[in-house]
């Protein structure tokens, strides 16, 4: 007996890296460089990548122990308790919506930079309409197309970086002197944003040729991304004035124009569009499916679990995400405060990674006999270190940006209240609809005698 599993390691890497590579990644990369002196951005990015490898190992063990598309909702529920898991999952999904908002803003800036006649608002609405239409029709990006986008994108970034470095006759300046420990910690903390979403590939564990491919794919994706980001960021900061990069909401366009002129602008616009569409689509799918699943267990009102009778997709959840996404994007468009969302995502992701490390330790203690095909080597060292380091990074981001602390704290308090007050009320209102009497007979029936294979 076997499953009709079709995805290979190549596609798992492409999916993990593709979900992570986004137009807003370049904004975060410039932020990382902005914290540091000399050409040390590569060091902070590689350090961030190395730390994310620890987190990826923890997610691999959690996924091996509890293979489920519900992800952190199930991991944290088993390791800690259901209410904490629910609160963190809801907050995480809200932050993912924020990332989608920031992404749409950055991509709109990129496209407006390439075609100034079309205002950013038009691009934003058009992108949401396209992706929402795809989601309602249940269209997903196929494995081969994902491979093409991700590897093409990474290859292009490396080529562009080498062209830029050759043009300026680049030599590393103070590559190991970041200008202080605090600056370095802050750079690494924001650098975590560069890897946001690599673990979204874990639901694919159910569709691969071998479940361990997901673990291997995640680790390889983080490693590849670290190298590509490090190289590209060094090339950007070596070719363009930092002030110009930091001041732009689409620094990759400033870089592309400086290096290759109008041809570079066109090339980068295409790359950014490819980078965004996968992240954007995956973000909207994740949030809408989460809303659907939450409504099915009465964490949200049941109206959100309505399915399209034609496409079998949760259309109410998808339209809700569309409305929320457009609203967030409009707020970002008018306030230009997209960096808060980038920092917010970095902080929230650090919190989730810290909890993932703790969850591994806790589940090993609570369920020592449970089947677990993959275990992080070295006992509790890597999970404990992951937990500690990401907790420090989360605090570092919150100290750097006051609004991040404020929004995260407010979000946590509101959702904690929701989970403790509103969810029990919703459950007691809707759960009595279950059948009053059991359909299953009490006595054991005789062999029903269906066909045998």
């Amino acid at each position: 007996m076997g499953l009709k599993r079709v995805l290979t390691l190549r596609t798992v890497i492409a999916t993990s890296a593709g979900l992570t590579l986004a137009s807003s990644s370049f904004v975060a990369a410039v932020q990382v460089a902005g914290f540091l002196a000399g050409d040390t951005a590569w060091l902070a990015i590689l350090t961030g990548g190395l730390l994310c490898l620890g987190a990826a190992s923890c997610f691999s063990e959690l996924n091996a122990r509890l293979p489920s598309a519900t992800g952190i909702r199930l991991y944290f529920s088993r390791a800690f308790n259901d209410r904490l898991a629910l609160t963190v999952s809801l907050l995480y999904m809200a932050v993912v919506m924020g990332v989608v908002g920031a992404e749409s803003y950055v991509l709109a800036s990129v496209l407006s930079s390439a075609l100034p006649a079309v205002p950013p608002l038009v691009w934003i609405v058009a992108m949401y309409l396209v992706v929402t239409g795809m989601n309602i029709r249940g269209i997903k990006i196929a494995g081969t197309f994902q491979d093409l986008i991700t590897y093409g994108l990474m290859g292009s970034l490396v080529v562009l970086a080498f062209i830029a470095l050759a043009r300026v006759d680049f030599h590393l300046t103070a590559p190991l002197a970041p200008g202080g420990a605090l600056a370095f910690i802050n750079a690494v903390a924001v650098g975590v944003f560069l890897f946001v979403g690599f673990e979204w590939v874990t639901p694919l564990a159910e569709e691969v040729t071998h479940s361990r491919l997901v673990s291997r794919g995640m680790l390889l994706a983080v490693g590849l991304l670290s190298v590509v980001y490090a190289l590209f960021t060094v090339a950007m900061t070596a070719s363009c004035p930092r002030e110009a990069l930091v001041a732009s909401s689409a620094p990759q366009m400033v870089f592309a124009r400086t290096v290759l002129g109008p041809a570079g602008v066109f090339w980068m616009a295409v790359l950014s569009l490819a980078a965004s569409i996968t992240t954007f689509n995956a973000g909207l799918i994740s949030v809408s499916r989460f809303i659907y699943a939450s409504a099915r267990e009465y964490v949200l009102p049941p109206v959100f679990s309505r399915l399209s009778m034609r496409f079998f997709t949760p259309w109410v959840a998808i339209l809700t995400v569309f409305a929320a996404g457009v609203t967030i994007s409009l707020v970002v468009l008018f306030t230009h405060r997209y960096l808060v969302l980038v920092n917010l995502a970095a902080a929230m992701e650090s919190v989730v990674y810290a909890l993932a490390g703790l969850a591994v330790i806790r589940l090993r203690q609570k369920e020592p006999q449970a089947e677990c095909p993959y275990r992080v080597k070295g006992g509790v060292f890597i999970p404990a270190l992951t937990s500690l380091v990401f907790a420090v990074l989360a605090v570092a981001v919150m100290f750097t940006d006051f609004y991040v602390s404020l929004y995260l704290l407010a979000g946590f308090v509101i959702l904690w209240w929701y989970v403790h007050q509103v969810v029990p009320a919703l459950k007691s209102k809707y759960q009595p609809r279950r059948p009053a009497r059991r359909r299953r007979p009490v006595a054991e029936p005789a062999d029903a005698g269906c066909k045998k294979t």
Partner: protein
Amino acid sequence: MASHAEITASLLAFQEGYNKNERLKIMNRDWDRVVLVQASDIPSQHTLELQNGELSVREGAPPRADLTVIADSETLADLFYGDITPTEPYMNGTLKIIGSEDDIVRLDFISLMIWGE
């Protein structure tokens, strides 16, 4: 712990509920899938096969499955009799469904259409 015969009976009840619902059959006309239903605590395997909107149940595992439903025998029997919804055991990890996310949603929808909330 439920027996293999109880799981068989629950699947037949599920099949009966499905076959009574003409609308559901029409909706699933283009959704041909093979589903393995496997108990985690007793040796019990069944195959649900959807072809051209018709649902059939067989004992034993199929050569290739699109979806695999794994849970303890009690959960499986209660689930296919419609005494519990799949959501709660799925969310707490008691019920594992291996397959694409879209197929999982479709299976949930079928269960909802047969047994209601």
